[in-house]
């Protein structure tokens, strides 16, 4: 399984960095959409190696970060029920709701479990017919097919003690929302490669045309990201605004047809609130009418739980690229990975956590001279 080293080769990276320096003549603001890309950029120090003219803006592409507080509170209410086995991806367990997180629910006796595959949750449901098994189905288009597969199979196999708490979000409406913002500074996007490996690239040409903005489908290893940036800068410098695929080893234009068929069957588009940003029309998926029986929010009657976000936290501005994480007054003071105020400080893919973990040195040196 060699897929990392080839795409981290320092000699090739150096050549790409030199090419980017050579073609850059003016300041450009480029947003990487996906939290996985943010993590990789900061972890490898890629942004430190780019020309000063190029500013990377960290986008809203961390699913843990954008899941609204309200949904977290609903998850906590469901997970606290004695009849429920609540299953989730690991990242979500430490996201604080209004007053607790899933770890706390567990220490108080709740049956909360980390699973790697959503289908493991379905297996738990089959093995525990006297318990209700709920899977916290969050994520972008990338995680959606596996989550959809759970209810597809549950329905087919007649497993009735399984349900999904769905908070799926979609990338293209978020890109549009960012471009529509009157304070938008973004001049180009690195699109999230793994989202496109599921959905293909057909959703993006309308965006490049309407907003006159280059979009380059980009992977996650250092060379992938540098190549995405190189192609983006070439477009910006030459005044083009096109869709390009810089991640062809994973992305084809038509996407994954089988996955998309299943997504069409299981989900339907809905308006979705993004933590820190607010409501974005048509930016999420909920279970379709055919699968409404598997909707955990309805099954456990938690739709009346409504929650306001913290007023101190400026994660919305971070997620829109309006401020850098350390420009928030609470950063590193009231808000740390240990005691996060907002979701961007929680997930290791969150921009604030990435800055806190990897970039405090710059800040210490800046403060200390």
């Amino acid at each position, binding site marked *: 399984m060699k897929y990392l080293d080839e795409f981290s080769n320092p000699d090739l990276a150096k050549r790409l960095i030199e090419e980017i320096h050579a073609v850059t003549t003016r300041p450009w603001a480029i947003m990487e959409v996906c939290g996985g890309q943010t993590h990789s950029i900061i972890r*490898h120090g890629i942004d*430190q190696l780019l020309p000063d003219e190029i500013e990377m803006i960290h986008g809203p592409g961390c699913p843990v970060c954008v899941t609204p507080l309200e949904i977290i509170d609903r998850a906590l209410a469901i997970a606290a029920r004695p009849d429920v086995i609540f299953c989730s991806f690991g990242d979500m367990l430490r996201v604080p709701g209004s007053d607790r997180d899933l*770890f706390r629910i567990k220490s108080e006796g709740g049956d909360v479990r980390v699973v790697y595959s959503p289908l493991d949750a379905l297996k738990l449901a089959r093995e525990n017919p006297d318990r209700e098994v709920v899977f916290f189905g969050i994520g972008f288009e990338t995680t959606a097919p596996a989550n959809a597969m759970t209810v597809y199979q549950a329905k087919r196999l007649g497993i009735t003690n399984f349900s999904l708490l769905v908070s799926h979000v979609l990338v293209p409406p978020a890109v549009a929302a960012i471009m529509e913002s009157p304070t938008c500074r973004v001049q180009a996007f690195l699109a999230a490669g793994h989202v496109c490996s599921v959905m293909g690239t057909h959703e993006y040409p309308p965006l490049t045309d309407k907003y006159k903005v280059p979009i380059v489908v980009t992977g996650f290893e250092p060379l992938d990201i540098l190549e995405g940036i190189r192609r983006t800068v070439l477009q910006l410098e030459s005044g083009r605004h096109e869709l390009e695929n810089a991640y062809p080893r994973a992305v084809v234009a038509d996407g994954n047809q089988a996955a998309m068929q299943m997504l069409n069957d299981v989900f339907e588009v809905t308006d979705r609130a993004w933590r820190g940003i607010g409501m974005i029309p048509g930016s999420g998926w909920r279970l379709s009418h055919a699968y409404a029986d598997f909707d955990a929010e309805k099954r456990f009657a938690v739709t009346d739980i409504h929650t306001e976000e913290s007023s101190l936290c400026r994660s919305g501005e971070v997620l829109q690229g309006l401020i850098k994480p350390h420009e928030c007054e609470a950063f590193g003071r009231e808000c740390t990975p240990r005691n996060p105020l907002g979701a961007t400080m929680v997930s290791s893919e969150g921009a604030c956590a990435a800055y806190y973990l990897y970039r405090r040195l710059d800040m210490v040196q800046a403060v200390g001279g």
Partner: protein
Amino acid sequence: MAEATWIGPIPDPMPGPAPAAIDMDSWVCPAPLRDSPAIVMGHGGGGAMSAELIEHLFLPAFGSAAQAEMGDSAVVEVGGARLAFSTDSFVVKPMFFPGGSIGDLAVNGTVNDLAMAGAVPMVLSTAFILEEGTALSEIGKIAEAVGAAARTAGVKLVTGDTKVVDSGSGDGVYINTAGIGFIPDGVDIRPERAEPGDLVIVSGDIGVHGIAVMSCREGLEFGTTIASDCAALHGLVAAMLATGADLHVLRDPTRGGVAASLNEIAKSAKVGVTLVERDLPIPQTVRDACGLLGLDPLYVANEGKLLAIVSPEDAEQVLAAMRQHELGREARVIGACGTEHPGMLVTRTTLGGTRVVDLPIGEQLPRIC
């Protein structure tokens, strides 16, 4: 229930017996809310929360009876001789893993704690807490592993204890060992002695034990062939001391990995530690597993490796002696101590950037995508 409409090919829905979801009792909670009124898993993680529990609960309660320097071993003077004294409890799940068992860990863990003070381990106590219903054949295998590890390490098991708890009150077997070792004259090894200019040496590949254990945990079988590096390190330490070199610091980077150990040393000695990413010996299997799970090898546990901090003048002969020893064949320099960024661990990335490597709050949780 009606058959779903999607008719594409789907994988076998339930191949084989259902793996249970990952049992979170064996995970360490990374960042539960600060005001938890009860013990959560994070309190046992060896990171920030463990330190707070000791500082704010145990030490005030112990009052003047406490005389702990918070190192892995205490150093006590008895009749002019200096003795190292250490204790450790072992609750690893599963009890057997590729390359070892809880029995090997119980002996080697305490032997290594003594060895990291430069002590020659002499005697060990072993206390077993056994869960009602555990098969005698399993206890027998573990006891044989304890005996074999002690014979290999050349330590005597001089006292012990056995207790049984109700079924459901334990995970089969918990083991506590305590050990005493003799510190030769002239040996003064402790974290505070790291100095600017000193080099950081690691005795071999990192991340091996943690990935080996993870590879066979319930719900997380990813079929890697890696075996734990569990081993007693006092022979290697003796070979290093025999060179006459002045070893400043030794540490076995167990829970929390290389990152936790070097952070603690940086804070104790008020030096900045800088690692060179391309010099880190990380085996391909560990790289791959960490890549899949979104983990950082620097935080993954080791059980048969040591970190040594020595002056540049001594480094060459220490390295030569290590490479002559079976457990140090791959020893190499991975970084240095300096006056910049005191108290912090920083890595120079392979691409040429830098990033801070923070003290873990608890164990890492796999990222979502």
